[in-house]
């Protein structure tokens, strides 16, 4: 059987520097999934981009051939003319980019950008394309595909944008799909759904899939072939099963050992002490209005958060997990004053244990400066949150500069040190943000947040783009600092394993509401809410023998109307959050 795609001896380099990707070989059969795993910054993205020749301007393919076999024809993608290549792109081979926010045009509606593929390659009429797109939207888990179709990227949550990207890559049903960390921003239930969809498509059309991921659980659940990369080189490659069962290369072993997991036997934990709260959110709601395109139609209202009450004790970690688009980011932004809550909501911040609380949305100038120094944010989308025309050095030292801390060289010193702590090298300081890999940017973002020695950090999925070993390093760093400096985190994540490890308290969100809240032990030991149960069930584990329980996932992740009576809620009737046992709150009718 001829492989669908074969990559031989691929080397890619930037500028005149030494090659970043060296001697990469792999091949992929139709209908198969090849998982590309490895260290953050090891060249996975560059390899994928090299296949479609979508490399940064200063990158060149130094050697190697990439051949696409199709209908008995073989196309050498490295030497194909631009015009023919255009025909391959998006049509036979399509790609999901790693950072969905920046990869979508800010000025065009999602629907337009997605349908375009069909107009281009399938000669679909506008209405026909729209139908197909809406259908795909439905399947990637958009609760309201029509709305998504009309939205602009900035109106969607991170996970929704990512799903839009996925839909864009899949509507045209390509022969080969290159998915660069397609589910980083998705909660596990949605992720399960999306992976299911991809599998379906593979079965239907024999589509090949190159899946770049750091989530070994996903690898275990989907891949037939695995390629492990480290520093631009393939460390180990081959069929998934033997590789996962008994990794041969030391790096692979190291990687697998670092994978966190939900503790199999969780113990209920005691409720959290709530006497010294650094951050308190009281009845926070947020309604957005989505601008309608036409002058006559009225704008759509979107309730991103509905009556959120959260307390974060000093020195602790409060994790928020939940469905993509459930308002986690919104809540976090409100907590830091980046966005104003609807009237009635209040956010209180206590700079020091005995001091009076500050209302975050009503501060004096001095209070604001102090607050901005004490509270930092790691953004969900690190690429967007770094100024594209600012070198990393400047970006890192900027907070210090703003608050007038240290001399010029001290600031540099600190930046370099910080960079090292997050596992990046000092020589990157003079680069611009675009010259980094996704995971590296995420670490930059973390480094920047820590530059000021804050007392509160809001981390919006800080490790989603990191491979497990780097993630391990970062988590250790976070914990370390927390314990040393009594730092508090508001930690948003999809990865329950990470949450289990770092959090002192977990809040589960769904559709703008907190549905269950408890310390992680309690939660994993005794999940009450169907959605929580679904989440736990959907968490993939790097164990081929424990596939995801899709039945449970479907049950909890379905629309709230389909839940058991006790938990059911609708737009208008919402049960209140009741404390079932000490420290364990569930949203249900009692």
């Amino acid at each position, binding site marked *: 059987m001829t492989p669908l795609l074969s990559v031989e001896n691929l080397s890619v380099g*930037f*500028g005149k520097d030494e090659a970043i990707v060296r001697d990469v*070989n792999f091949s992929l059969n139709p209908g198969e999934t090849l998982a590309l795993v490895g260290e953050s910054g090891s060249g996975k993205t560059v390899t994928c981009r090299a296949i479609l020749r979508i490399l*940064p*301007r*200063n990158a060149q393919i130094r050697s190697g051939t990439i051949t696409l076999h199709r209908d008995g024809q073989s196309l050498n993608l490295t030497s194909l003319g631009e015009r023919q290549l255009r025909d391959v792109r998006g049509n036979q081979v399509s790609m999901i980019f790693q950072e969905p*926010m920046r990869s979508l045009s800010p000025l065009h509606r999602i629907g337009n950008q997605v349908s375009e593929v069909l107009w281009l390659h399938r000669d679909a009429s506008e209405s026909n394309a729209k139908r197909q797109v809406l259908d795909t939207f439905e399947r990637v888990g958009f609760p309201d595909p029509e709305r998504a179709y009309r939205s602009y990227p*900035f109106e969607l949550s991170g996970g929704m944008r990512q799903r839009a990207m996925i839909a864009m890559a899949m509507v045209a049903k390509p022969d080969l799909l290159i998915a660069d960390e397609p589910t980083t921003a998705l909660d596990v239930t949605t992720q399960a759904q999306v992976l299911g969809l991809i599998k379906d498509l593979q079965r239907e059309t024999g589509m090949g899939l190159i899946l770049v991921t750091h989530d070994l659980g996903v690898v275990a659940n989907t891949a037939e072939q695995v390629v492990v990369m*480290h*520093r631009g*080189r*393939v*460390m*180990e*490659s*081959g*069929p998934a099963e*033997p*590789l996962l069962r008994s990794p*041969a*290369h*030391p*790096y692979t072993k*190291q990687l697998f050992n670092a994978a966190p997991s939900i503790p199999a036997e969780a113990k209920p934990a005691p409720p959290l002490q709530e006497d010294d709260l650094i951050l308190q959110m009281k009845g926070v709601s947020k309604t957005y209005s989505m601008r309608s395109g036409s002058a006559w139609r009225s704008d759509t209202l979107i309730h991103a958060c509905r009556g959120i009450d959260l307390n974060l004790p000093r020195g602790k970690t409060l994790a928020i997990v939940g469905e993509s688009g459930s308002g986690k980011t919104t809540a976090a932004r409100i907590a830091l*004053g*980046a966005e104003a809550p609807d009237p009635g909501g209040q956010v209180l911040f206590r700079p020091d244990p005995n001091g009076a609380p500050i209302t975050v949305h009503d501060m004096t100038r001095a209070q*604001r*400066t102090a607050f*901005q*120094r004490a509270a*930092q*944010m790691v*953004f969900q*989308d690190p690429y*967007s*949150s*770094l*100024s*594209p*025309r*600012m*070198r990393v*050095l*400047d970006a890192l030292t*900027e907070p210090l500069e*703003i*608050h007038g801390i240290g001399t010029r*060289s001290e600031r*540099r010193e600190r930046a*370099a040190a910080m960079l*090292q702590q997050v596992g990046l*090298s*000092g*020589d990157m*300081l*003079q680069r*611009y*943000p*675009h010259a980094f890999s996704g995971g590296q940017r995420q670490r930059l973002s973390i480094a920047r947040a820590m530059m*000021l020695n804050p007392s509160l950090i809001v981390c919006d999925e800080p490790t989603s783009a990191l491979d497990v070993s780097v993630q391990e390093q970062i988590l250790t760093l976070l914990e370390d600092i927390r314990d040393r400096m009594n730092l508090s985190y508001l930690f948003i994540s999809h990865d329950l394993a990470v949450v289990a490890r770092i959090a002192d308290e977990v809040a589960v969100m769904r559709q703008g509401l907190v549905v269950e809240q408890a310390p992680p032990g309690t939660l994993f030991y005794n999940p009450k809410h169907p959605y929580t149960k679904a989440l736990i069930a959907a968490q993939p584990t790097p164990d081929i023998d424990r596939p995801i329980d899709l039945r449970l996932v479907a049950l909890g992740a379905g629309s709230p109307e389909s839940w058991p009576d006790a938990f059911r809620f609708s737009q208008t009737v919402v049960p209140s959050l009741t404390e079932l046992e000490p420290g364990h709150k569930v949203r249900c009718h009692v």
Partner: protein
Amino acid sequence: MTQLPDGRYVDDAPYDAQASIQQLERRDLDAPNWLLIWRKFRQHKLGLYSGIFLLLSYLMLPFAGFIAPYTPNERLSEHLYAPPQGVNFFHDGAFIGPFVYPIVAEADMETFQWKFVADESRPMPLKFFCEGGTHHLAGLIASDTHLFCAPPGATLFLWGADRLGRDVFSRILYGAQLSLTVGLIGITVSFVLGISFGSIAGYFGGRIDWMINRVIEILRSLPELPLWLALSAAVPSNWGPVSVFFIISVILGILDWPGLARSVRAKFLSLREEEYVRAAEMMGASSSRVIRKHLLPNFMSHLIASATLSIPAMILGETALSFLGLGLRAPAVSWGVMLNDAQNLASIEIYPWTAIPMLPIIVIVLTFNFFGDGLRDSLDPYES
């Protein structure tokens, strides 16, 4: 690379989990930003050469009088409309250094043109470091030494002479002193105003935006024409042409900013919604810092292009104004003034050299353009 029996490949190069992370040289780290920009700029050859040319042009300005063989208003009344004279080196096949042939004018009463006949038998060598009309080095030190001048009894019109017998080449050199400086003041004024007001309106939005926009609208709704007419009546008569020109270019600048301000505003209105702006704000960056460090760099290309484009407009602004009785007039010399004299058919068809001042304008504008382009490229993070 080894192949395991189950079909796996394993890299067999030595693996070091703790591979050292290379350190950047300190020198590089401490390099200030301008140095990094300069390093990138150096690679843009065209931009570099243009920059050097501009630098030389500006350095030449104080010495224009020294380089020019004549003073700007020196009339050789026997040589009206003399055509450009070549400088020769060989006479009768023999090399005798740079020289010119003397020319004599004759009035042709049929065509009403001056006919110039060169006396090819009498080569007259040019003189160097010779005495001529008084000029002022850097506007201060009086001197009558010129780099080169015509031999006594002959003339040296490298680029011909104009209607009053003045040397076009010398006038262009002198004209540069005004054209390359005063006009730029207007650009500066317009940019400072346009950027400040535009960024304030765009960044802050709301009421400030409303106010600034109304001012812009009103400013733009009042056409310039009546203003110029009123101005030409109001300027005190004892003002020299240069100060009038100065005021005019300042006013040109003041009138010019709304357009730029609106572009800046529009761009900032959308840029301010970017996540990195949010991030900076959340770190406590002041508004001016956000504008300077985050917003403006993202609009730099547009600004550089706009600045380049304003240059010809400012140099030529006076030609348009002279229709209204404003603008520079003799005895001040500028390229615009010279072109103004050339604005008739005869200059195009019969005495094309009187329109030569177009050349330096184009050259200057093009070099500014390439210079700006180089600058743009070296500020562009995506360029390597």
